[in-house]
């Protein structure tokens, strides 16, 4: 988790306005969901280029994540290929196989869109975009605060776990219960301390966030994105399978 988050702050597309990235990946996601297999293949490859080359995310990270997702997929596929009739007779149906292949391409392409967003856009900047999209402020506030605390707890959990390991522990289910218990205590401690801090700063009942400003549209990437999307859509139209 820390890893993807760190990459999101340090990749080469960091300075590209978040709206551009969010819109781009959402648009591609839409095309993936509606499009055919050719379009999905092109999108998988194209996004790999964006992620590894333009954003300079290390290819090991990308490949590892991709393998993990493929593994998840593989686990679930046999279930779909096999069909059982009422007499518990197991058979393999050829129409199922083509369904599964379609599913594979769609899933991986959709995942690519999500992953692109994940490694190029810091979560806070994603929230700015949500705000522009007029998502209710209570949701954004909660996401905003949660994001801050996630890393506080991640650290606490991590240090507790190291301390357990230092005393040869951490493999027992009872230790897991202890860890959860400690984290709950920390949660309460944080609540008490932070509510003082909030009041000390005249908390008005509304957690705020300023608009990120000064982003300029990045023409080079915008240009490529538009051309690419148009070409993919054309590919779909020529293939005649769009929608």
């Amino acid at each position: 988790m820390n890893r993807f988050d760190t990459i999101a702050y340090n990749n080469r597309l960091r300075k590209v306005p978040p709206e551009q990235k969010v819109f781009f990946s959402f648009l591609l996601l839409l095309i993936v969901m509606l499009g055919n297999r050719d379009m999905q293949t092109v999108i998988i490859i194209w996004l790999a280029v964006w992620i590894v080359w333009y954003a300079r995310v290390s290819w090991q990270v990308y490949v590892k994540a991709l393998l993990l997702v493929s593994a998840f997929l593989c686990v679930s596929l046999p279930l779909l290929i096999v069909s059982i009739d009422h007499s518990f007779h197991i058979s393999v149906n050829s129409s199922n196989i083509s369904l599964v292949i379609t599913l594979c391409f769609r899933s991986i392409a959709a995942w690519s869109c999500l992953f692109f967003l994940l490694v190029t856009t810091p979560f806070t900047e994603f929230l700015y975009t949500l705000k522009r999209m007029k998502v209710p402020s209570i949701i954004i506030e909660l996401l905003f605060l949660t994001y801050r605390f996630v890393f506080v707890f991640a650290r606490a959990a991590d240090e507790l776990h190291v301390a357990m390991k230092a005393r040869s522990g951490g493999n027992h289910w009872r230790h897991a219960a202890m860890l959860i218990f400690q984290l709950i205590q920390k949660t309460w401690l944080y609540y008490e301390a932070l509510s003082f801090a909030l009041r000390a700063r005249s908390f008005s009942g509304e957690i705020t966030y300023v608009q990120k400003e000064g982003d300029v549209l990045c023409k080079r990437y915008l240009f490529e994105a538009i051309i690419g999307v148009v070409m993919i859509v054309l590919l779909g139209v020529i293939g005649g399978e769009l929608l």
Partner: protein
Amino acid sequence: MLKFQDVYYTYPDGQCVLKGLSLHVPLGKKCALIGHNGCGKTTLFLHANGLLIPDSGEVYWKGKKIDYKQKTLQKWRQEVGIVFQNPEHQLIAPTITEELAFGLHNLRVEKSVINQLLQETMDDFSLHKWRDKPIHHLSLGQKKWLSLASVMIMKPSLLILDEPTAYLDRLQVERFMEKLNDIHQKGVTVFMATHDLDLVFQWADVVFVMHDGQIVMQGKPEEVFVQGERLKQFQIGVPLLAAVWNTLFPNERRIPRSIEEIKARMKV
């Protein structure tokens, strides 16, 4: 400036922490509060801007008795800035800009003013280089620095700090104290609790010794730290410098407060 008169406070769990505390923080001075852990320092600070309300006794701010109405509180809290011990317990927003703007926005300051203050504070605390970093990528020292900045952006007239130098290394302490002196130069009264007696000795104008919910000694550091025996009774020691000096020159009552002062004296 800030005055406590006979303040009593008992926590809801029955623990009585302030037991008739009286204290006067004078305007424009560098004040230090010392005392062993658990003597009530943090509780005292929480009374200094109305986060806790005394069970009995009065608190005065700039000569006026505090009435704990919402409006008074809001103004008061803007004028008294507190930097808590643990920056993790103070920083609320996940990014630096938002963290700085948080207090201002709560006071419904106008956007253009916020932006201007943001710019100033970023310059003042040289935060520009971290600007794009999220708070969870900062080190502890940087978090401490940021929590000071996010309090100072409110332009308080009294700055309260709880153990600001713990876990910092020498260079970080130096930078931090330099900044505090800067802030003090600009007219802000500074009030700090710490265990670092040498720091207190060198830095403070006034020292308050707290013990068991009361202020038991106060005065200039050279006056307070001469009374080694009494301090011992309150579980507080003597700054190393004072101890060395007393050993070397037991008859000389005027203790130098820093190495520079020793150097100067040696020359004379």
